C-alpha cells in the first residue's frame, strides 16, 4: 500500500519534471492538458484492466481467463471498427457504445461456449479464448483492409497513452464506478465462482450474477480500449500475482489488485517513456514484453502447483461451471 502511494507520487513528480522542460507558464498548461490526464488514464487503465481480469477469472473458475484471453479486447476493437465504418463522424462516446456492446457480446459468447464444452484441461480455456479472439481480430483486420481503415484502427490495436489529452480520455473514468460496483458485488462473484450448485445452495442467482459480472468486466475493458487501445496481460498477470499472496476472496484482494494494477501500468509507462527518450514506445510493447515473461512463469507455477487441484477436480477442472446434469450423467456411466 505504502509502496504504491509512494510510487504514485514518483509518477507525478516524473510527469512534473518533464513538464518543467517547457518553461514556467506553459508548464502548468501542459501539466493540466496532457500530463495529469495521462496519469489518471494510466491509473484507471491499470485499475480497470486488473479488476476486469479478476472478475473474469473468478466467474469462469479459471486462472488463465482475462480480457485478453477471453476475447473481450478483440471484441471491443471490433466494435470500434463497426462504429468507424457505420458512423464515421461518431464521437468518442458513440464509439464507446459500440465497443461496449461488442465487448459484452463477445465475452458472453466466449463464456457460453466454454460452458457448453467441458474442458478437461485448465489451459484449454484460454487457448480457446485466444483462438476466438484471433478470429474476431481477423475479421476486424479484414474489414479494415476492405474499407481502408487500417490506419485509423491501428491506434486501437496497440495501446499507448501518447494521445491521451484533455477531452479525449474522460471516458476512462467510467472504469471507476464500475470498479466500485464490482466491489459491492464482490461476494456474489466469489460465490458464483464456486460453482452453480454452490451458489444455488446459498440462494444466489447463478446466471444473473455470471452475466452481470461479465458485463461489468467487459465494459471496464471496453472503456479502456476506446481510450488507450488494447493493453494485454495486465488483466491476467496482476490478479494472479495478488491471489498467490492474498488468496481469492475478492473483498480482500480487490483493492490490492487495483493498486498493483495501477502501479504495474505506471511503471511500464515510465519505462516506455524513458527507454528511447525523447521519443516514446507504445506501452503495449513494454507490457507485452514484461507480461509475456511473467505469463510463462505463471504457467509453470500453476502447472506445477495446480496439479493436485486438477486431479482432485478432474471432472470439473477447467470448465466454467459444471452443470449438475453432467455429474448425474457421470453417475450413470
Amino acid at each position, binding site marked *: 500500500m505504502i509502496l504504491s502511494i509512494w510510487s504514485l507520487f514518483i509518477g507525478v513528480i516524473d510527469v512534473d519534471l518533464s513538464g518543467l522542460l517547457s518553461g514556467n507558464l506553459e508548464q502548468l498548461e501542459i501539466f493540466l492538458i496532457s500530463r495529469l490526464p495521462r496519469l489518471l488514464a494510466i491509473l484507471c487503465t491499470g485499475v480497470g484492466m486488473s479488476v476486469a481480469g479478476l472478475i473474469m477469472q473468478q466467474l469462469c*473458475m479459471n486462472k488463465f481467463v482475462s480480457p485478453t484471453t477471453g476475447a473481450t479486447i478483440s471484441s471491443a476493437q471490433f466494435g470500434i471498427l463497426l462504429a468507424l465504418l457505420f458512423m464515421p463522424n461518431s464521437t468518442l462516446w458513440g464509439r464507446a457504445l459500440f465497443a461496449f456492446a461488442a465487448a459484452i457480446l463477445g465475452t458472453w459468447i466466449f463464456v457460453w461456449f466454454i460452458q457448453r464444452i467441458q474442458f478437461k484441461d485448465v489451459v484449454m480455456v484460454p487457448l480457446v479464448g485466444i483462438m476466438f479472439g484471433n478470429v474476431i481480430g481477423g475479421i476486424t483486420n479484414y474489414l479494415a483492409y476492405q474499407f481502408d481503415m487500417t490506419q485509423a484502427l491501428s491506434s486501437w490495436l496497440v495501446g499507448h497513452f501518447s494521445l491521451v489529452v484533455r477531452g479525449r480520455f474522460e471516458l476512462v473514468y467510467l472504469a471507476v464506478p464500475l470498479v466500485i460496483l464490482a466491489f459491492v458485488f464482490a461476494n456474489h462473484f466469489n460465490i458464483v465462482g*464456486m460453482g452453480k450448485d454452490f451458489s444455488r*445452495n*446459498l440462494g444466489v442467482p447463478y446466471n444473473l450474477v455470471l452475466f452481470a459480472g461479465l458485463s461489468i468486466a467487459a465494459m471496464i475493458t471496453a472503456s479502456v480500449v476506446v481510450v488507450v487501445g488494447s493493453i494485454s496481460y495486465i488483466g491476467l498477470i496482476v490478479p494472479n500475482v495478488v491471489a498467490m499472496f492474498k488468496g481469492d*476472496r475478492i*473483498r*480482500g484482494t480487490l483493492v490490492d489488485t487495483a493498486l498493483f494494477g495501477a502501479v504495474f501500468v505506471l511503471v511500464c509507462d515510465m519505462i516506455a517513456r524513458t527507454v528511447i527518450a525523447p521519443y516514446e514506445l507504445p506501452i503495449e510493447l513494454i507490457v507485452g514484453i514484461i507480461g509475456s515473461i511473467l505469463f510463462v512463469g505463471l504457467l509453470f507455477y500453476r502447472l506445477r502447483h495446480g496439479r493436485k487441484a486438477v486431479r482432485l477436480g478432474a471432472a470439473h*477442472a477447467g470448465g466454467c461451471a459444471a452443470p*449438475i446434469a453432467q455429474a448425474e450423467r457421470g453417475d450413470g456411466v
Partner: protein
Amino acid sequence: MKVTELTKQYDGKTVVDSVSFEIPKGKVLSLIGPNGAGKSTVMGIISRLIARDAGLVDFEGQDISRWKSKELSKRLAILTQSNQIQMKLTVRELVAFGRFPYSGGRITAEDEAIIDQAITYMELDEMQDRFIDELSGGQRQRAMIAMVIAQDTEFVLLDEPTNNLDIYHATNMMKIVRRLCDELGKTVILVLHEINYAAFYSDYICAFADGKIAKFGTVKEVMTRQTLSQIYKVDFEIMEIEGKPLSIYY
C-alpha cells in the same frame, strides 16, 4: 417434506420414474442404489438444483419451485460432489459464506459468533486461517460441513459425502452426520454408495433401482437379503453388529 410422482428424463431416457416418498423430520435418511438408479437426481430435484419434468415437491406446505431461492437457502442446504473448490479461500472465509443468505456480504457480530461456533463444532479452530486448497480431502469436507452448519438450516442434503475419502475420514464423516441429526436436530438426507454406512448411521433408507423406489423403510426393513439382492443383483448376507444389520456382498 413430501415428494409425489417425481419424474425426470434425460435425452428421452427416464432416470426418475414417478417417485413418491415422505421425508421424516429430524431423522437421517439415506438414498442408496446402484449407479444410474436416479438417487442423485432425486436429491438434485428436492434441493431445487435440478428441474423436474413432472411431480410435486412439497416443502413446508409450499412447492419447492415457489420458494424464494434466498428464503429456501435458510431452510435447506445442499452439498454436492461438484463442490470441488479450487479457490484460495481460508476455511473461515468459506464458512462465512454460509451466512450469505442471512446477511449478504456484510457479516454482523452475530454472524461472527455463529461462524465461530460452526468452526469449533467441526474442530477446525486450528486451521481456520489456512487455505482450503492446502487441506486434505477429509479436512476440506469438514470445512464444507462447517459452512452448512453456519447456514443454519433445518434440512441438510449431502450428495455422497464419503466419496474420495479413506475409511478413517469416511467413518468420521458419518459420525458427523449422526451428530448433525442427534445434537443439532437437523433432518439429514444423504446419497450413499456404501450400504453399510447407510445401515449403521441412518434411521431410514430409501433404495432406488431403475429410477423407481425399490424399497423405503427403516434400516431393518430395507436391509434384508432379498431386497438388497434384488436391487444390486448380487448375493448378500446380512449380519448383525451392535444391533444393526450389516451386509456382506460377494
